[in-house]
């Protein structure tokens, strides 16, 4: 495998990491697979497109790109708040079974997808071209500029998230709540606020991921179904583990790029799913998933 391919794989993987981590954050706390995250990505990708068209009157190049990302991230945060209030808070306060979360999340995902379809129709859109230059040469390797930016911005977003999780009070609360909600409450943590913060963080990651997916592929209402990539990455890395999700996502990106060049884009997903199933069968806790048990 050439360095070229490795780089492409890593940059694709970094976007998958955004999806997987946004997914894992919510899984950690509420213990369910939040498929509404796909809807968040679709919605924010379109909002990002609208923002890029709006700002293109004044900006171009990197500033326009930045403005697009920031708008989508902000939109993601707001969608996260609305989602938590509308779809999950009541269920949580009633201590309802996990299946309710699951149904609610799928419903919200489909709802957001269809809201986009109503307002933007089901035609394909694409982001404006942000840069004149499309390929840069770095250490004798050609890399697409968008790939490079994807890598840089995704890693930055993930670094900021890790900093928040491991160095701030709200981060500690998010991690504490993921172990035991009641005990975290007994420590004076307001679970409503902490869960809200989690959804905001997931929404921001979803927004950034949405823009990158929109740039990488084209914009269509079913874009959010790429959440599956995040899910696969989470399973490979270890469901619920943030670092595991990142490792899994980068592996998945490299794997996909390699498979596409080896067996073609048509059959590559087959192998990806086979690998995921193998993981579920042989090592269901994933690469980084360590099961920490309390002593009874």
């Amino acid at each position, binding site marked *: 495998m050439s360095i070229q391919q490795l780089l492409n794989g890593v940059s694709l993987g970094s976007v998958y990491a955004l999806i997987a981590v946004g997914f894992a954050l919510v899984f950690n706390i509420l213990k369910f697979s939040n498929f509404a995250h796909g809807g968040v990505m679709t919605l924010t990708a379109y909002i990002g497109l609208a923002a890029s068209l709006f700002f293109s009157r004044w900006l171009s190049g990197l500033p326009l790109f930045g403005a697009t990302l920031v708008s989508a991230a902000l939109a993601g945060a707001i969608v996260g708040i609305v989602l938590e209030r509308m779809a999950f808070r009541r269920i949580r306060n009633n201590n309802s079974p996990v299946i309710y979360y699951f149904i609610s999340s799928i419903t919200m995902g489909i709802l957001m997808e269809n809201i986009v379809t109503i307002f933007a129709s089901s035609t394909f859109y694409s982001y404006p071209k942000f840069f004149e230059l499309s390929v840069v040469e770095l250490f004798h390797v050609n890399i697409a500029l968008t790939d490079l930016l994807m890598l840089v911005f995704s890693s930055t977003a993930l670094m900021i998230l890790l900093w928040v999780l491991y160095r701030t*009070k709200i981060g*500690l*609360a998010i*991690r*504490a709540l993921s*172990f*035991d909600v*009641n*005990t*975290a*409450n*007994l*420590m*004076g*943590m*307001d*679970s409503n606020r902490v869960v809200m913060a989690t959804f905001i963080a997931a929404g921001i990651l979803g927004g950034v991921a949405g823009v990158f997916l929109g740039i990488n592929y084209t914009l269509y209402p079913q874009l959010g179904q790429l959440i599956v990539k995040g899910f696969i990455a989470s399973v490979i890395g270890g469901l619920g583990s943030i670092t595991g999700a990142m490792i899994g996502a980068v592996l998945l990106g490299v794997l996909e790029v390699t498979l596409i060049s080896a067996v073609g884009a048509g059959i590559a997903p087959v192998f990806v799913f086979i690998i995921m199933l193998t993981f579920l069968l042989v090592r269901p806790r994933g690469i980084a998933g360590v099961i*920490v*048990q*309390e*002593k*009874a």
Partner: protein
Amino acid sequence: MLVVENLHVSYGHIQALSGVSITVPQGSIVSIIGSNGAGKTTLLNTISGLVKQHQGGIKFKGQELGWVPHSIVQQGIVQVPEGRKIFAGLTVEENLLAGGYILRDPKHLRSNVNKMMELYPILGSRKHQQAGTLSGGEQQMLAVCRGLMSEPELILLDEPSLGLAPIIVKSIFDLIGQIRQQGITVLLVEQNAKKALALSDYAYVLENGHVTMEGKGRDLLCDPAVKRAYLGEKE
């Protein structure tokens, strides 16, 4: 300090507490003994706000208690839950920091962490270790220290001696004595009636959701009915 009056709690059709009244004076150790399912944990969880549906009044320092757990913690009541419930995947230090979540000043928080580590050097030497790797006794110490982090006025201890070796049980009860000396009021729920009663100023016996007996700890210790039911002594 804490006055619970005529408290009724039910889970669906099951009546867990029916008309429980207890009083916890400032600076004292009050214990509640009773068998499994008597409603001891329900009583503590209702005071802490984890059980929301209840009838009857709970007053703390003359004021109505809040409805949600985090505001009750801010009023100065902290519960150390049954079964330790430490955050297994967080480090020992992070567990302590989590306990002091309501403290706003980072320096204050840090000095409290250091205080706990001086109190139990083992916590200091293992501060970067995942809390789940500690032994049962160490976890219980950590759980109590975590509860003390936010400097409560009243601490609720739910079965702190559960499943621990006798020598560790002794050090837990020593710790409870120390807590009182610091001026913190203690409401203790225990199955280890002998030790609990010996340490308590006042005690209540809870059976099937009713307070069936109450009195000074020493008096209950000598009471024939308590001896029969909870201390395993034959007449």
